[in-house]
C-alpha cells in the first residue's frame, strides 16, 4: 500500500511517491493506493504548472489503471475538510472513512507514506 499525504509541488514527496507506485505496479504487486490529508491535492483537477516551471505530473495518476492498479481510495474527511468531492479529482478513487483506512493499514504488509 502506498499512501499519499502531501501536497504537490511544494515538496517532491508526491511525485517521487508516484514513481514508486508505477515501479511497484510493474512488479505485478497487488497494490493499494490511498490519498489522505493534503495528498488528495496531488490528484486535484485543473492543474496548470506553467507559471512555476515545474512539470505537471497529475496526468500520470490517470495511468494507474493502465498499470492494473485498481485499488485506489480517498479519505472522506480529508476531502470534506478541503471542500472537494471526487468530481474535482483527475481519477475516481473509492471513498472510505478513517476507520477503514486504519483497518486497511493493518491488513497490508508493505506500507509507504509519501
Amino acid at each position, binding site marked *: 500500500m502506498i499512501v499519499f499525504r502531501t501536497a504537490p509541488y511544494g*515538496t517532491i514527496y508526491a511525485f517521487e511517491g508516484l514513481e514508486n507506485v508505477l515501479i511497484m505496479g510493474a512488479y505485478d504487486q497487488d497494490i493499494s493506493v490511498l490519498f489522505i*490529508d493534503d495528498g488528495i491535492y496531488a490528484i486535484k483537477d485543473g492543474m*496548470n504548472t506553467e507559471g512555476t516551471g515545474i512539470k505537471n505530473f497529475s496526468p500520470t495518476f490517470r495511468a494507474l489503471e493502465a498499470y492494473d492498479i485498481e485499488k485506489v481510495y480517498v479519505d472522506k474527511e480529508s476531502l470534506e475538510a478541503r*471542500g472537494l468531492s471526487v468530481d474535482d479529482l483527475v481519477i475516481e478513487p473509492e471513498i472510505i472513512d478513517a476507520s477503514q483506512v486504519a483497518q486497511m493499514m493493518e491488513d497490508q504488509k508493505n506500507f509507504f507514506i509519501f
Partner: protein
Amino acid sequence: MLHLVNTSPFESSDLESAAKYSAKDSPILLFEDGIYAAQAGTAMEGRVKEIMGDHPIYALKADLEARGISNIIDGITEVDYTGFVELVEQHKTASW
C-alpha cells in the same frame, strides 16, 4: 513587513505564527503550498477570514494555477510574480 507563508495550513503552523507575530495591517502573501489557505470552502476558511480582519492577504497566481485552485476566498487578492516583486518593493519581508 510582508509575511511570506509557503506551507499548507492543514499541515503546518506557519500561517498561525505569521498571524500571531505580525503588526496589524501588515500583509501576508500565500505562495507554494501556502495557497491552500486561500481556497474557498475549506475547513480553514473561517480562520483565514478572521486573519483577514487584521491583515490583507495575497495569493500567488502561479502557485494557485499549478495546484488547480481557482475558487478563492472573497477579498484575497491574486498577484503574479510582478505583483510579488511590487509587494517586496513596499515592505521588508519575513519568511515563515
